[in-house]
């Protein structure tokens, strides 16, 4: 999993010193070891060399000086305090140790932290405290800078929390790939080269017909500019407005539900590898004025699932998240297409067509599950580079406030917020992908695959009857059209069309 270069840490340490404006806390060990101090200032003077990674200036210091295992070979000292410090548990991997610690309550972790330097490092592993907070407080937590301090403030309010919960102690001789990687991913900024490629087609002011002909029918992504001009949300939506208008209403945030005020408090302060992401499918039902602050862009008005009325699957979400939050590779449910409009902030998109599985992603044979074991930032660190050598490069872009991206049905996509962002997204079915959707809903394992509704197995029946009732004959018409098209044309892959100068002339066949 970890593929850090051995000199990454030293590069990071150099940049850290450059970037950090706050004075780093004194360490007990440094004071006792003047020789060590000398080494560090020498490193500072050398300045930046090579590429390396840059840390966020607010990166937490609660790595406690954890270093990756490779550094043990380069270090003048030869011991890893992990060995003596874990005792009999040293034969277990870091993940297994954390599995055990995951069963402990807060006070037991606190006691364990005083047992040895190794346990100190393990017991301060933030994900442990995040789980405890979410388990015991659900969405009602008052984020205090770190999950540990949030927990302590809630359950031990009389105990004064210093330094926003981050601790002073640095453990210089502790080496662990797992813990280091976790901290690294929480602290990294997106590298410039990950953001450079922007090869999506952009259009402004095209007609609906042009959109359908050139993008929706051929199933190609496009970034549309200037079609949110009538959105009140673009003017009005910021944290203050939303908090005021939504008050105590709770929104879906990962496994819990939170008030906006509490969520923003968390999002403003957090630095972690997989931040909690606000993703609510009922926002307009919960707070109707939000629904009236935006209009579906012209191109996406055909919305066939609407024939199901209140029984339609989830179809529209408000998405709010801090830098680093996002979605790792997936294909949108029910074979629908989607549009995603950024109201505030900016998002980096990486898209692969349906027939290309992104590197590092492992869909199960039936498509019901997708295993993407790495976080988004780790995917960029370890897999993004591979895409440069591929003939089948992904479509990429940065989508900024006021822009809308069209995500055709079946396309793999990954999104990461580059800064705190607010967006609205909708999934939809039009006549262009109706046949696909019906095929999808008909599948034998529909009960696992179909999403956004409690009534998975019957959705096909309900939907097709409702369509037949509202638009009689449409289904048959579209099905025969699809069969005709498939019969007439051979099926070039998407990539053949992209390299072909006459882009737009071929049709991306239904069902492939």
């Amino acid at each position, binding site marked *: 999993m970890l593929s850090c270069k051995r000199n990454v840490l030293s590069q990071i340490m150099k940049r850290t010193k450059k970037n950090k404006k706050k004075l780093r806390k004194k360490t007990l060990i440094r004071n006792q070891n003047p020789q060590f101090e000398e080494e560090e200032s020498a490193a500072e003077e050398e300045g930046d060399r090579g590429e390396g990674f840059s840390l966020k200036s607010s990166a937490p210091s609660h790595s406690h000086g954890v270093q990756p295992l490779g550094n043990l070979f380069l270090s003048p000292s030869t011991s890893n305090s992990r060995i003596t410090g874990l005792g009999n548990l040293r034969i277990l991997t870091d993940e297994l140790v954390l599995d055990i610690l995951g069963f*402990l309550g807060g006070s037991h972790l606190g006691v364990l932290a005083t047992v040895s330097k190794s346990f100190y490092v393990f017991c301060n592993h933030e994900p442990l405290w995040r789980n405890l907070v979410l388990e015991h407080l659900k969405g009602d937590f008052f984020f205090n800078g770190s999950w540990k301090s949030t927990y302590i403030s809630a359950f031990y309010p009389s105990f004064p929390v210093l330094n926003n919960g981050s601790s002073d102690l640095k453990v210089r001789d502790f080496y662990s790939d797992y813990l280091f990687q976790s901290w690294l991913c929480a602290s990294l900024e997106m590298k410039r080269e990950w953001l450079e490629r922007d090869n999506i087609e952009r259009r402004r002011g095209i007609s609906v017909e042009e959109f359908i002909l050139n993008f929706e029918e051929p199933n190609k992504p496009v970034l549309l500019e200037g079609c949110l001009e009538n959105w009140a949300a673009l003017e009005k939506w910021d944290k203050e407005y939303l908090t005021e208008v939504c008050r105590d209403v709770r929104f879906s945030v990962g496994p819990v539900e939170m008030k906006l005020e509490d969520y923003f408090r968390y999002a403003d302060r957090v630095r972690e590898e997989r931040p*909690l992401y606000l993703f609510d499918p009922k926002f307009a039902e919960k707070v109707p004025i939000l629904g009236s602050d935006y209009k579906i862009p012209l191109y996406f008005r055909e919305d066939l699932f609407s024939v199901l009325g209140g029984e339609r699957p989830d179809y529209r979400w408000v998405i709010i998240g801090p830098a680093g939050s996002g979605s790792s590779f997936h294909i949108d449910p029910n074979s629908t297409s989607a549009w995603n409009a950024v109201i505030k902030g900016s998002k980096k998109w990486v898209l692969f067509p349906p027939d290309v599985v992104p590197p590092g992603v492992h869909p199960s044979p039936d498509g019901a599950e997708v295993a993407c074991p790495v976080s988004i930032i780790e995917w960029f660190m370890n897999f993004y580079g591979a895409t440069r050598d591929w003939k089948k490069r992904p479509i990429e872009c940065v989508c900024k406030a006021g822009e809308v991206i069209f995500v055709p049905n079946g396309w793999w996509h990954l999104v990461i917020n580059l800064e705190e962002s607010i967006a609205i997204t909708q999934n939809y079915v039009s006549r262009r992908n109706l046949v696909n959707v019906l095929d999808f809903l008909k599948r034998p394992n529909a009960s696992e695959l179909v999403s956004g509704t409690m009534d998975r197995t019957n959705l096909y029946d309900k939907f097709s009857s409702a369509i037949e009732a509202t638009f009689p004959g449409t289904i048959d018409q579209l099905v025969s059209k699809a069969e005709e098209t498939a019969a007439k044309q051979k099926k070039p892959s998407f990539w053949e069309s992209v390299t072909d100068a006459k882009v737009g002339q071929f049709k991306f066949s239904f069902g492939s």
Partner: protein
Amino acid sequence: MASPKVIVLRTCDGETFEVDESVVYVSETIKNMIEDGCGDGVIPLPNVSSKIFPKVIEYCKKHVSDFESLKKTSNGDEKEKDKDDDSSKKGKEAVPDVEEDAEEKARVEELKEWETTYMDIDQQVLFDLLQAANYLNIKGLLLMAAEKAASMIRGKTPEQIRETFNIKNDFTPEEYEEVRRENAWAFE
């Protein structure tokens, strides 16, 4: 009806074991290997010793028929790992709770008793079991062993914990004071 298929496995120290396929299927790792076509030859288990393997098989045997229903009844005990946010849109709904009737309750009781006896083992065996369950990808066993290890930590003083696991206190006196102060709330 065809007789159950027997799978042959070899542990890292060269010993072979013959186990029913259904039993050995409780291990996701072995299941995947069989599904990939290794079921007809000898399956090597380089990370599992002949010492711990029988203990693992004992668990598997107990949980073969219970496998499906066990998943449902122990939903409350199992730790839910943090779900990655990409599944937000997919919105997988939770499995509805199984209503417990008297028969079910008795079964659960019996299983709990079995587990208590099964987990009455020393530390070395426990850690070997943890590693084996991890390598063989037997989630229920992993969680059970991890919880047992956690129970050996819970409620003890730092010194007692050190003694239990043979841990050296490698803080300097000043560091220890600092760490104690930072975590004073846990000692109330």
